[in-house]
């Protein structure tokens, strides 16, 4: 059985990633953070939260609450990346 594809929620800056990550952590949600691959085409040297797809809505909510812009959400698979609206 294959695991669900993880998602990358991309932000402009690692500072913003930390802010959202800590906010989620305080609510009992743990997510990883990574450098966003350049091929995603998101502006600049971005960083991302790496999580299961089921957590994306919660991350969107947290980002909205913190007034931090998400620059893109992508699925990650061995075949590459796919943008999620």
């Amino acid at each position: 059985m294959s695991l669900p594809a993880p998602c990358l929620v991309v932000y402009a800056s690692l500072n913003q990633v930390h802010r959202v990550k800590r906010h989620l952590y305080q609510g009992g949600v743990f997510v990883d953070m990574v450098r966003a691959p350049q091929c995603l085409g998101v502006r600049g040297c971005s960083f991302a939260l790496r999580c299961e797809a089921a957590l994306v809505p919660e991350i969107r909510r947290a980002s909205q609450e913190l007034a931090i812009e998400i620059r893109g959400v992508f699925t990650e698979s061995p075949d590459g990346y796919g943008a999620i609206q």
Partner: protein
Amino acid sequence: MTYLDHAATSWPKPPAVTAAMCAMIEQAGGNPGRSGHRLAMRASETVYACRENLAKIFGVRDPLRICFTSNATESLNLAIHGLLKPGDHAVFSSMEHNSVWRPLRELERRGVGISMASAGPDGIVQPDSVVNQLRPETKLIVLLHASNVNGALNPTADIGCVARERNIRFLVDAAQTAGAVPIDVEAMQIDILAFPGHKGLLGPQGTGGLYVHESIRLEPLKQGGTGSDSESSRQPEFAPDRYESGTLNTPGIAGLNEGVKFLLERGVEEVQRHERTLTGRLLAGLAEIPMVQVYGPRDSHHRTGVISFNVDGCDPVLVADELDRDFDIACRAGLHCAYLAHRTQGTEKTGTVRFSLGALSTERDVDVALAAVRTLAQKGRS
């Protein structure tokens, strides 16, 4: 060594400060916010933790509104140069440090109006004195929370109220109070807070920071790499990246984080209570020594543990030298980079000897200092 120079920099630091700096260099020495490898990510976690702890200690809701600088002077320059444009007007006090006075005088040459609010004879700046200097075009009030010369503690929240009621930005220089006196930027209506990391916050030298309210957009002091929006030729709009070009002092920030954690554990209120007790003891002791003149408020509730004095007929620099050489006491003498404040209290020609207490000062430090000054005063009289 009896160390009474905490207003210049605190010493010694809690052992965890040194340990964290060494660990950062030896075990997590990556560049935060640039690379994505584990060392860099670990370093960035410490930097963010420090931001979060600073936010906690100053009552800041969003840690991203705190940017790191190398000292309070850089923070003040960023705030003053970043906010004021030709045609604007700023009010400052007659007790300000050169790190406020000089940038303002520089901006005055470029068309910014500036006015000075006079402190009282004790060095305290009353709100009315500030109000009297306001103009329709006043954009900024700059005030030091407490004097680095005589310890006078300003009614900062009241002056914050004056600023907020008139929609004027309020910049507070917390060089002498961050970590030593409770500060809540919301309650005190502070829009911009400049602080050093190496004094009351117990971090290493080369650290400092600036809190900037989310409604304020400063022009950055420097431009360059931020690890974000790299395809753009302009600085990012978002904080703290906008104000933090170039590699941070990560080992220093790791040390600062431990200093702040130490204070959060002990409580800034407790530090203030401790310093007040010692200040009262030092003031009472100095008052009993003939030929010694002490400056600033007499009541320890209206001051910090920064105490300026002179021994009649003695050059303060020579007194400080003697205290160092013969009594193993470290203190500072001279004008303390605050000519305005010395002019206000009438010591601009002589300067003063300054004892300054810190969170780790002890009753023994105070008693050793008093015995030494007593001996010097007796010697001066004979």
